[in-house]
């Protein structure tokens, strides 16, 4: 197991290196000249030249890339060209917001998807099954940004049940930071009003973000459950007198969830993609909105860093998924 994990982690490096080359090459091809942008709105031609020199933008591309690699290898992802702040610091500050959103979405996704999928499979071809199937196809066809806007429109703007934006009310001071996850921090500090506010704020973004994944999980759970229900061990247990509901939970469910878990890695990718627009629409201060902001300002160091960080997280999540998979499926141990 340990060897397996180590091997997987080692296999990360070539991918990350490739990623660095890829993103750097892309950004090198960008038509807009970072030096002009850096020099500012009122810069003169000499100013621009000076900036170019200062940032090493006049050196050959491989030298620039080499400089960058050297920095990255010591854990320095560079400084934002706009704010002069270390990118890693900004990412670290914003990561908890995204993690919180992603975790809550994952939980919604798992609970909702597995429940729907199970109901659909157990009551195969019943109205519940039809609803499950409708949700599972709709979830893959609905545009996350549109869903976000519609939920925001109906539940926040018109009905006013939930806040329109942000993680906490604007006038509120965030709970004391322990983990950076407001839901957790507010509980740990027994700050229940903050907890309530945090829940209200995260509800719409999390539901939006969870919807597509929920559909996938429901779909996988349903089909895998249907398949598992035809398995010999089900009819065997049934034949020995174990009641049907008892066979479903926990026995068939565990087998079906294993299949669903293998999809979590893939889902995580769509979760990140979704987070980009969801965070933007709900003003959620995570790395998704950070990336959108960097793209809008052509802050290439930030784009580069976020892409790398997302790539690394994505790969790590896939490793974690593999490990979880191995843990719940004894055959793989």
């Amino acid at each position, binding site marked *: 197991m340990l060897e397996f994990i180590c091997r997987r982690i080692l296999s990360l490096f070539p991918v990350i290196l490739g*990623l660095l080359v890829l993103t750097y090459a892309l950004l090198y091809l960008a038509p807009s000249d970072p030096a002009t942008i850096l020099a500012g709105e009122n810069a003169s031609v000499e100013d621009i030249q000076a900036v170019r020199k200062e940032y090493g933008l006049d050196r050959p591309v491989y030298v620039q890339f080499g400089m960058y690699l050297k920095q990255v290898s010591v854990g320095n992802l560079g400084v934002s060209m706009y704010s002069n702040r270390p990118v890693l610091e900004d990412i670290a500050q914003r990561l908890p917001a995204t993690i919180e959103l992603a975790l809550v979405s994952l939980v919604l996704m798992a609970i909702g998807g597995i429940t729907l999928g199970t109901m659909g499979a157990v009551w195969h071809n019943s109205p519940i099954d039809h609803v499950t199937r409708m949700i599972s196809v709709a979830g893959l066809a609905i545009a996350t940004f549109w869903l976000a806007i519609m939920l925001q429109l109906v539940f926040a703007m018109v009905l006013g049940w939930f806040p329109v934006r942000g993680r906490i009310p604007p006038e509120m001071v965030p709970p004391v930071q322990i983990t950076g996850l407001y839901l957790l921090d507010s509980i740990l500090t027994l700050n229940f009003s903050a907890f309530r506010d945090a829940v209200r704020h995260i509800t719409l973004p999390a539901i939006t973000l969870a919807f597509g994944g929920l559909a996938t999980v429901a779909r996988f759970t349903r*089909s895998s459950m249907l398949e598992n229900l035809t398995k010999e061990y089900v009819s065997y247990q049934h034949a020995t007198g174990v009641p049907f509901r008892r066979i479903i939970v926990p026995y068939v469910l565990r087998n079906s969830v294993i299949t669903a878990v293998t999809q979590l890695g893939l889902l995580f990718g769509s979760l990140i993609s979704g987070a980009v627009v969801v965070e933007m629409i709900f003003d959620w201060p995570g790395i998704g909105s950070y990336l959108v902001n960097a793209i809008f300002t052509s802050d290439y160091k930030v784009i580069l860093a976020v892409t790398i960080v997302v790539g690394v997280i994505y790969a790590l999540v896939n490793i974690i998924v593999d490990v979880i998979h191995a843990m719940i499926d004894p055959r793989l141990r």
Partner: protein
Amino acid sequence: MVVKKFSRDLPATFGLIVVMSILTVAVFGWWLVSGPSDVYDSNLLARLSPPSAQNPFGTDDLGRDVYSRVIIGARSALLVGVGVVAASMLIGVPIGLYAGYTRTIGSEVVMRITDIFLAVPQLVLALAIAQILSRGLESAMLALALTYWPAFARTVYGEVRHQKTSLYVEALEGLGASPFRIAVLHLLPNVAPAIIIRATIGVGFAILTAATLGFLGIGATPPSPDWGLAIAESRQFLPESWWLALFPGLAIFITVLGFNLLGDGLRDILDPKLRRSR
């Protein structure tokens, strides 16, 4: 037999009908609207009017008819979907065939490159690429194709690897057929069902992602009646002018739904081995 099986699959039939309708709308869109003036010309006096008999989907902030713009938007949406998938196939399928069939350093390298592309969520990578290209629908399409081809490469690679062990390939190799011949004339037709399924669902997916790029302001450009762009433009008029966001979104939803259902149906027919899961 196939037709009968398909027609009994209600969702797939629905999908086919939707896709055919969208195709019709895309081709004959101009017959369904009263003219280019409704689509492009501003009418500042009638701006932001709610749905009515005259403007069934209301008007936008420049007074243009939302219905006409949604109808005309189908063409570019479809063009993007099909274009991206076609381009991705052009890149991905040969790469997948090559890497799957040969076992050389080259195929290893190619598949590692594929891994790198797959190591970042597609939208993030597409955003980064589209961002450096000049703005416009073509750039968005290019960005999507450049990030979507690994999906095809993977699919074909997997299928070819699977087929390669079959007896018929060994037999052909024994007969001294050239690798190129085997790959193109024999393997390709056998992996075609997988490609077709992937492509059908891919069209829906590409439309969805292109709309997202348009929404983020790096896809289609005004004044083209792009659905994603329209939703982005609608935001500042919410909640009052809800129709601006509702109808283009529904159009995306129905179109993508149609392609997904059709893809599912095709999967059931073309590849009964694959589960109806994804």
